[in-house]
């Protein structure tokens, strides 16, 4: 595998180009027939035709949102895996998505929130609160929790939070009707205005993650080694926690709970980029973006005209991978 610095550096623009092609493909495929030329024309000489409208208000925002959400979730997953030295760590598995979902359902039920941007605020708060609880529980005790314990704690939190969500949905059928598509995870019908609201958080999260890349690499060697090298590990962990909250929170805010997107990508990336998070993080962002764009295309095409929620597609791809990891990659 190419691990020379030059090969990895050259890989980044290639990856970007591939991602651009994926975005174009995502814009082209769909119910209405649209050609590549139409896409270019919609932006160069906007004529207000139906195609132009579909491209500019539906297809393009959807592709961009899928890509950004994928990048955020993958980077969040990479940080969580590095920090907890747990190959199974991921925002969905550790209950962060479920916390966001409960907050949104509660927001609708109690405060009558009805807009996507309203959901986003609650999702953000819920994700952050759950991340803080799981993270706090994970840092309790001597030397933090083992991968096993963090995973079980997360899974149990998920059970707890989703049973409370179900409870609200039973009490209020109106909430159920309003929320069930959001709850399954989707990037359909999101507009750019919604994205612009969370974009600052996403950018801040990505930049913070990249700034911490060297420290996370060192921390991956073990807490003792990192301390020995003069790192203030508590500070690194806290900052990385903030980055995870920003990334996972804003991703869930836009797209709903999308499970397993953050699990697969860092493993794929480590396979060719090695163990240095200064390479893992940017590549995770690229590959995560591509993965989610293509998952979204698949969600639209597989059962077309019916659409599978994106969160279901990623879970069906990611859960077998999770089982594979649990079977072969976790040391007993």
């Amino acid at each position, binding site marked *: 595998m190419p691990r020379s610095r030059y090969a990895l550096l050259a890989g980044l623009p290639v990856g970007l180009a591939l991602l651009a092609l994926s975005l174009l493909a995502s814009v082209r495929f769909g119910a209405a027939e649209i050609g590549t030329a139409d896409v270019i024309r919609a932006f160069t000489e906007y004529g207000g035709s139906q195609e132009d409208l579909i491209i500019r208000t539906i297809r393009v925002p959807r592709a961009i949102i899928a890509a950004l959400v994928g990048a955020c979730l993958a980077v969040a997953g990479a940080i969580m895996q590095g920090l907890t030295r747990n190959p*199974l760590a991921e925002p*969905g*598995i550790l209950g962060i998505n479920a916390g966001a979902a409960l907050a949104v359902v509660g927001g609708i039920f109690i405060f009558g929130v009805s807009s996507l941007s309203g959901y986003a605020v609650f999702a953000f708060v819920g994700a952050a609160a759950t991340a803080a*609880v799981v993270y706090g*529980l994970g840092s*309790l*005790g*001597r030397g933090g*929790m083992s991968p*096993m*314990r963090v*995973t*079980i*704690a997360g*899974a*149990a939190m998920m*059970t*707890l939070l*989703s*049973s*409370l969500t*179900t*409870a609200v*949905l*039973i009490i209020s*059928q109106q909430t*159920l*009707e309003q929320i*069930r*598509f959001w*709850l*399954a995870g989707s990037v359909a019908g999101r507009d750019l205005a919604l994205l612009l609201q969370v974009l600052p958080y996403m950018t801040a999260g990505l930049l913070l993650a990249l700034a911490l890349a060297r420290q996370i690499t060192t921390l991956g060697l073990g807490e003792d080694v990192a301390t020995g090298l003069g790192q203030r590990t508590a500070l690194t962990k806290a900052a990385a926690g903030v980055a995870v909250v920003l990334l996972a929170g804003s991703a869930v805010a836009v797209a709903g709970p999308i*499970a*397993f997107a953050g699990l697969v990508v860092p493993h794929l990336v480590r396979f060719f980029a090695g163990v240095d998070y200064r390479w893992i993080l940017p590549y995770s962002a690229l590959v995560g973006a591509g993965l989610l764009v293509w998952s979204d295309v698949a969600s639209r095409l597989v059962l077309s005209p*019916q659409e*599978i*929620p994106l*969160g*279901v597609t990623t*879970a*069906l791809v990611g*859960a*077998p991978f*999770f*089982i594979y990891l*649990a*079977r072969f990659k*976790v040391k*007993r």
Partner: protein
Amino acid sequence: MRTSWFPVSLKVDLRAVAVISALAALAFAGTVAHLAVGEYPISLLDVARTLLGLQTGDPSNAFIVETLRLPRALVALTVGAALAVSGALLQGLTRNPLAAPDIIGINAGAALVAVTLIVALPSVSSVYLPPAAFCGALMVALLLYLLAWRGHSSPMRLILIGIGLSAMAQALTWLMIVSGNVQELSRALVWLTGSVYARGWDELWALLPWVAVLVPFALLHARHLNALGLGDEVATGLGSRVELSRGLLLLASAGLAAAGVATAGTMVFVGLVAPHIARGLVGPPAGALIPTAAVTGAALVVLSDLAGRVLFAPTEIPAGIVTAVLGAPYFLYLLYRNRNK
């Protein structure tokens, strides 16, 4: 006390007997209250008379007690016992205090099949839901054991793979929920939360054989469970056939969870919390732990159902919501207490 013809040694533990009696009294009190209170209150004296088959002067009492409330209370007791013993077995054989049938996907498998049935064939009678859910739960258990098998099974792989299977089943369940229409979905959701609403004698007779066979089976295998708790090497050294006992106990645990879930839906945290309370009361040896967990679970569910009926009357809260709300803080406390293990 040890007999030559029966392969169990019964050390009569006085503390366990006292604890079990106290819990049984609590469960009994819960059951009596269950029979007496409600939209149509019946005095305790009349409840007793009705149960003994005497006239009470009000002919509707017999109907309310014997047809509506008694079977429901008995189903709650039995479901609680089944889930609690299932959790106790699972925690013992995985050597993990946080394992529970709801976490390793057995509930999720049952839920997936039941929700699929409700959404795909809305006209199907609810009679078919329990057996379908039962098959789903057992399928997940078998798949879990196969996937966790690598020359030998490992408790840790069992749990982690179970979490993966659970997530997958939940994703498919959401696919069903998104494609169904809202009327049927409410039915599916009540089922997903766990409730003993409108359960009658038929459900009780369907559930009872499983509990009557599998709980004694678990008791007979208590010594294997104790050996497994010491670690695979020690257990093998003690002459325990580790894989065989683990496989059988896992199946027994899955069977109990499946029977409970098939009857009452996915009632969360009973399988996690009841064995813990029991362990706190009588300690870890399985011979005393299993019966104590059973009565704890029975009391927990019957009291949760009672609370769900009474708290917001006339609106009824599914018992599963009550167990979730009670179980959540307890679970966080467990995480905190086990932080150094």
